[in-house]
């Protein structure tokens, strides 16, 4: 029994040490990316290419997800309002819930799945086929060429995609509210206008930028840590997506406290 407890304690200590080592490695990579930021601007084309891949490449997926998110929000609101809250507030509820929470978080989860996996798989493949070593052998910094463009593009494009997702979700809510629930379009739009606040939008976009950073860092970190062949690339991809999604949700909770209980508390 004591032996089992001792082995359990050793295992727990090792896991904690591994976790701290991982946090340390991620911090070092982010620090190196920050140092390589200015030199990376010389290769601005790489950043624009990544912005196109991350932003434009995600639009179709985000359109479908946001349209149905807005629709579901309208149906759920109508169901929960029944005989408690007048249905004229559906537009108001949808616009606030989408802009503050659903838009940024669902976009981060959807884009995180797509982009995080793609970054990790691409960099992981480059690692196992020695392309990253080849860059270093040519005296070129892989962080500057591979990490900074993806990180900058993720941070810049996620808010842009989120604004688009917000608009599509509110439109999805409009379609369901007017067609399926029977509210007049004018009432829906009036509710949206009355309850649209810039501080809600700002907080949502601020969250998106942080989520973009998380997605970029996790994709690049797990890609760079890839070992072995195809199996290693598969593991890196899975780890990047899981880590992005978990961190997005945890950070969302922490940011909710900071933004709505401190910064925008009044």
């Amino acid at each position: 029994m004591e032996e089992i407890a001792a082995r359990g304690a050793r295992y727990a200590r090792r896991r904690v040490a591994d976790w701290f080592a991982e946090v340390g490695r991620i911090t070092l990579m982010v620090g190196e990316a920050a140092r390589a930021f200015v030199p990376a601007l010389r290769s601005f084309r790489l950043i624009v290419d990544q912005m196109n891949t991350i932003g434009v490449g995600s639009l179709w997926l985000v359109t479908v997800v946001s349209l149905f998110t807005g629709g579901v929000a309208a149906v759920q609101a109508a169901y929960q309002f029944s005989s408690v809250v007048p249905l004229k507030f559906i537009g108001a509820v949808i616009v606030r819930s989408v802009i503050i929470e659903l838009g940024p978080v669902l976009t981060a989860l959807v884009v995180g799945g797509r982009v995080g996996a793609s970054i990790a798989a691409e960099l992981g493949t480059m690692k196992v086929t020695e392309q990253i070593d080849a860059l270093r052998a040519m005296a070129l910094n892989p962080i500057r060429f591979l990490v900074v463009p993806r990180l900058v593009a993720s941070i810049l494009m996620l808010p842009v995609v989120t604004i688009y997702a917000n608009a599509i979700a509110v439109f999805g809510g409009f379609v369901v509210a007017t067609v399926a629930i029977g509210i007049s379009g004018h009432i829906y739009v009036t509710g949206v206008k009355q309850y649209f606040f810039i501080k809600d939008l700002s907080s949502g976009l601020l969250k998106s930028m942080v989520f973009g950073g998380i997605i970029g860092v996790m994709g690049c970190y797990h890609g760079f840590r890839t070992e072995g062949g195809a199996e290693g690339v598969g593991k890196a991809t899975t780890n990047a997506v899981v880590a992005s999604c978990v961190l997005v949700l945890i950070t969302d909770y922490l940011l909710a406290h900071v933004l709505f209980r401190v910064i925008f508390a009044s």
Partner: protein
Amino acid sequence: MIRIRGLSKRLGRKQVLDGLDLEIPSGETWVIIGRSGTGKSVLLKHIIGLMKPDAGSIEIDGEDLAAMDESQINEVRKRFGMLFQSSALFDSLSVGENVGLALREHRMMPEDKIRERVTERLDWVGLAGSEKQRPSDLSGGMRKRVGLARAIAMDPQFILYDEPTTGLDPITADVIDQLIRAMQQRMRVTSVVVTHDLASAYKVGDRIAMLHDGKVVFQGTPEETRASRDPLVKQFIEGSSEGPIQV
């Protein structure tokens, strides 16, 4: 000159290099042979500073890599070219962009001169006019040749070849061997070729060194290698599973 003294490296539980000593004089082509997993590629990666040794020193023309920071190592790397086992071409770039990448990023010459250099180096490896092709459109032998053109684009003093003929048919392998010899004669570079292809080793090497258990156990000319009575060398060149090298 490349001078390696007491180089040791452990990867996981395996002592890959164990106090390895080697001196490669300028202008010569040395071939490193040995069984798979004996640390030949690890040795190459130490020479170009892609791996840090646990112990020992690697001097490039008298400068010790172990005492340098990354920016100083980068200056040394600019004097090297390396052909990787998998060619390691960047899929997102065209052939011409691959070959000219380091020249452009290090701003070594104006754009028109870079284009001329890329054209010239592709011509040297027999791939004139292939600038616009994508790496994914090339055969294994062509990828190796583009990798070689990229390795020589910056006029290096040293060229490292990691398994240059592995996975190629004998005729294409001979083309690569001839290119290695041609680069040697044309550019007067110091070359280190890692291979277990003995036919290739005899063709390209001025001298051959054999690695075993993390150390150099033999060095000599191709003729001396063929005539060697050393049981390790004999077993390796005869390709026998019986002998002092245990599988």
